[in-house]
Structures are given as C-alpha cells and as structure tokens.
C-alpha cells in the first residue's frame, strides 16, 4: 500500500523495515545531508526558528503519543514542559550538575508528575480529563511562580548553556545539532513505539477502552504509561528549551501555549509520526510569517494598535477551527493522498 508496485518481501524483517527501497534510503540520506549542512547557509535568525521547530517537534510528538495514539486528551502540556524546563534549570544553575543529568531528570520528573495528574484518566475520559489537565497546568505554574527560593519566581532563573563532554552548545548552529539530534531520536522512538505491543495497546485503548480491557490490556498500566511517555518527552523538550533560551520565566508556559500544542497535532494529523512534524512546521512558520507581516501591515494600512498582538491568536483559532471542519485527519492525510497520487502518476487507474 505504501510501496510502489513490484516490491516483494522475502523475509519478515524486510517486511517490517521502515526504509524499504533504495529511494527511501537515498531520500533519508539527502534529508540528513540537508539537516547536517543547514547551519552553513541559514543565518542565526532562521537557525533559531529551526531550533524552536525542533524543540516543539519533541514536545508535540509526546503529546501525539498521549492524544493521537492513546486517546487521552491533555490540555496541560505547557505545564509539563515547564516542569522539565525548571527541573533542568534548577539542577544546572543552582546545583551545578551536568547538562545530561538535568536533561534526563527533567524528563523523569515531568513524566512522574504527568502520571500523578494522569491517574484520573483511569476512571474518566474526554472532558473530565481535559479539565483535570488544565487544573494541573494552573497548579504547576502557580507553584513555579511562588516557590521563589528554588525557581526564582516571577523574576525567572538564568540557565547555563548545555554542555556535553567538554563541548559547550552556545551558538545557534551548535545547538541546532543537539536539538535536531534528539528530535530525530525521539521521532525514531515514536515511530517504533507505535508498532510494538505497547503502541498497539494504546491504539486499542483509544478506539474503545472497555473492549481493550476485555482483550486483556491492563488499562491502568497502559494509560499511565502513555502519560509517562508523553510527559517525559515534554520534559525533554522543556529542558532543551531552557538551555536554548538561557532564561526561564513562566511567561513561556501559558495556558494558550497548551492549547496551541493540541492545535498543532490536530492540524498535523492525530496518530501518525509525520503528523506532529508537519503541524509544528506549519504552525511555527505561520507564527513567523505573522510576526513578520503584522507590523508592516499595521503601519501601511493604519490599523488599530491591537492588530499585531491580536492577529496571531485569531489566525491560529481560525486555522484550528477550519482544520477540524474541513480536514479533521490533518496534514498527514493530505500528505498520504499526495504520495499515493504521485506514485501512480500519470496512470492513476
């Protein structure tokens, strides 16, 4: 189905492989070459956009495992990212631990807090879960804002740059390699997770959790595992975000940011590996385009002063609504359609 005609598989291994044809492998190679040389021809500004895209892909992939595969709606993702960011910031700044320790413990702490707030998911779903994750976000941000002795409160906290084995990641270019490297690992992990027992259990729970339970899937374990994995990746993304910006306060983790994450994976397409990537690139570039165009438009057409701040959320809101009405399966579905038509071209029948 996903392959051109004439490809035969003689072993089970080959049938299960992600990259199957020479074209696949060469396209992967081209992608790696492009990603590897990207810092050479992008200036710092666009590299920072690429870094933000990379970080958002990690977080959105986590959310996609939670919502897209396991069907557990979470609107507190920015809160879990904040947990990761502050864990890493506090460990590396106040305790002066190495970056890698901060990164891993950011993921773990975020994951555990996600599990705690995910416990209601065992008994409730849908709206109830959405509300309890919103509550989680508000409680987390409140604690971060007021636990000043540790987190720096409203004043924020300075985060030292990432450092692994003597290499310090200061410039946008070097951070790009770090972030993209981790993002590729995460995408690879997510792609494979979906094909294992765990991933299939998630999908069964999403489609009908009672039926899944009857078939012998331990709901308690797998739902909480989904929360753990989703929030673990959020924590990793948060840690990278903290070290990338170099300064943290809770302005980065507002409730609207959580909503944006849900929007990203809706726009990208739920329950596919490519979906979050497409969604993130789409939203972040749209954001970039708006922040580039809005001031110009405002000054040329003499628009009211709120235009620049208001247009962004308005456009995102409209995009989310339009995608849900017109293309609920997201960009990933469009991408599949495109691939199918291109493979059969010019003889589509």
């Amino acid at each position: 189905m996903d392959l051109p005609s004439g490809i035969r598989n003689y072993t089970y291994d080959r049938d299960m492989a992600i990259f199957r044809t020479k074209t696949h492998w060469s396209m992967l190679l081209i992608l790696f070459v492009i990603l590897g040389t990207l810092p050479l021809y992008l200036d710092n500004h666009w590299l920072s956009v690429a870094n933000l895209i990379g970080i958002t892909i990690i977080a959105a992939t986590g959310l996609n495992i939670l919502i897209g595969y396991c069907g557990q709606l979470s609107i507190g993702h920015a809160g879990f990212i904040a947990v990761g960011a502050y864990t890493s910031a506090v460990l590396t700044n106040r305790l002066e631990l190495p970056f890698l320790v901060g990164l891993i413990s950011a993921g773990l702490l975020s994951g555990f807090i996600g599990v705690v707030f995910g416990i209601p998911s065992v008994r409730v779903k849908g709206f109830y879960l959405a509300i309890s994750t919103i509550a989680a976000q508000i409680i987390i941000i409140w604690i971060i804002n007021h636990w000043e002795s540790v987190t720096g409160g409203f004043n924020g906290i300075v985060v030292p740059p990432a450092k692994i084995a003597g290499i310090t990641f200061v410039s946008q270019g070097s951070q790009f390699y770090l972030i993209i490297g981790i993002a590729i690992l995460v995408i690879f992990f997510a792609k494979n997770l979906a094909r294992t027992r765990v991933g299939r259990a998630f999908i069964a729970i999403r489609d009908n959790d009672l039926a899944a339970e009857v078939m012998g899937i331990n709901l308690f374990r797998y739902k909480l595992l989904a929360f753990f994995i989703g929030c673990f990746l959020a924590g990793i993304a948060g840690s990278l975000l903290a070290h990338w910006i170099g300064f943290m306060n809770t302005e980065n983790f507002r409730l609207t940011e959580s909503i944006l994450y849900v929007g990203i994976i809706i726009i990208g397409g739920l329950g596919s590996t490519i979906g979050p990537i497409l969604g993130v690139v789409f939203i972040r570039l749209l954001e970039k385009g708006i922040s580039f165009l809005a001031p110009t438009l405002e000054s040329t057409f003499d628009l009211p002063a709120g235009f620049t701040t208001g247009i962004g959320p308005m456009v995102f809101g409209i995009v989310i609504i339009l995608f849900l009405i017109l293309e609920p399966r997201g960009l990933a579905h469009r991408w599949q359609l495109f691939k199918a038509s291109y493979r059969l071209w010019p003889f589509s029948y």
Partner: protein
Amino acid sequence: MDELLQYIITGLTVGMVYALIALGFVFVWKSSGVANLALGQLVLISSWFTYGMLVQVGLPAWIGLLLVIIFAMALGWITERFVLRPLIAQPILSLITITLGLAYLIEGLVNFIWPKSVAALPHIFPQQTIHIGTAVVSMEYLLAALISLVLFILLSLYFRYNRMGIAMRATADDQLAVQACGIPVTKIFSRSWMFACVLAAIGGVLMSSIGGITYGLVHTGLKAFSVVILGGLDSFLGAIIAGPIIGLAENVGGGYLTPLTWPGVKDVIPFIIIIIVMFLKPYGLFGEERIERI
C-alpha cells in the same frame, strides 16, 4: 471570627456568579454533548463589549446592558451555526478541541479590539456597604448574588413550563426521540448556545463591575469548570449547589491559607478541588454516572 463571616458572605455571593456561568456550560453539555472550554473567553469578550458600550460609546447603562445581552445572543448563534454545526456527530475529541480553537479566536479578537489589558467598568450598582453582624459587605456583591438567584428561578420556571424549555430537556434526554417527535434539534442546540453566552455575559458583567476587567476573567470562566465538575456535568441543581461551595472554599481557604502558603492560593483552590474530585468522585455530587457498553 469577624473575618470568617466576611469570607463566608463574599464566598457565597461570588459563588453564585460562578454557578451562573457554570449553568451556561451545563445547558450546552446537556443538550448537545459539547464541552465548551471557551467559557472563560466568552466571559472575557462580553465584559470587554460592555466596556466598549458603556465607556467608549458612552451609552446609558440600561441600553448598554441590553445591547450586551443581544451581542451575547448573536455570539452564541454565530458560534453554534458556523463552528459547531458542521461538527455534529463527530467524536468528542473534535468537539472539545474546536471550542479550544474558538477560545483562541476570541482571545485574539479581544486583543485586537481592546489592546489594553486592564479597564474599569462604571459603577452599575450602588456603592454603599451593608453591615451584616460584624462583616462589612458592599451592595455590589449582594446585588450580584440576588441577580443570580433571580435568574436561577426564572430559568427553572422556563424549563418547567415553557414549550421550548421542555423541548430542551427532552433533547438532553434523547436526541433521536426528540427528532422523531418533530422538534428541530439544531434549533435547540443554537438556543442552548445563546443561553450559555448570555449567562456568561451576565456573569462577566457582574464580576467585572466588582473587580474590573482583567485577563483574570478567563480564570473566572475556568473556575466555573470546577463548579461543573463538583456539581456533576449534567446537573442544573449540582451547578447551583456547587457554585457557592466553590466560592466558599476559595474565599475561606484563601483567607486562612495565604499566610501559611503563598499569595494567590485563593485562585488555585478551585483547581485543587477539581483534582480532588477527580480522584474521589469523578462524576461529581449530582452527576449521572455513565455506564458504558461495548
């Protein structure tokens, strides 16, 4: 002891307003099964619209407030017609996320039209204070509670005796049966959205005439969720009883816990209650426990 009475009276009155906003949610949930997460933003935009009418245009209060009600009804109608109707019979996940998109859109609109972050409404209510026992309560709070109470009574009468009200209750019970009886279900949906928006608008005006218009109004809308969760999603009575409970917990708890913890604990208590209710009794005090079949 003095302050306890003060906290209790403030809590009860504010809680009534929360209950009013929460009622709007319950309407929509019961009739169409849509979870309206844009509640806070609906409160926000109606308060700003009130500001626009009363301060920027300078209309007298009664015309302005009438226009706010009409605006809220129009908003509800537009929302239902153009955002939610295309999604009838879609999975709950889409229904929830589309209201999130709506929330985003409304927030952008508010930023766009009213770029300032804080504003004060002119005083709609008299400013005197009343002494109840040892507590000093301003008229505004009492009137807000009174208005909410009157609205509760009117609404329950509407649902008890009006044809449309009865049809709405019937829709909540069984959509297919109602359709078979020849009642236009889409009309009921749009009616329930109009109700939700009007109640959010009244709640918004009451809250912002007391505390001014800030972004915190979105949190007022979010606190209405804790009322809904505590009372049970599909229970009018639950919302009316849980509202004052949340108000009480917020004010009494906030008053006594702030010295022990950090400032602002008042605004977090409703969300902590949500988490506790989720753990102990997820369907709330009066909510109907859904028994699912495969």
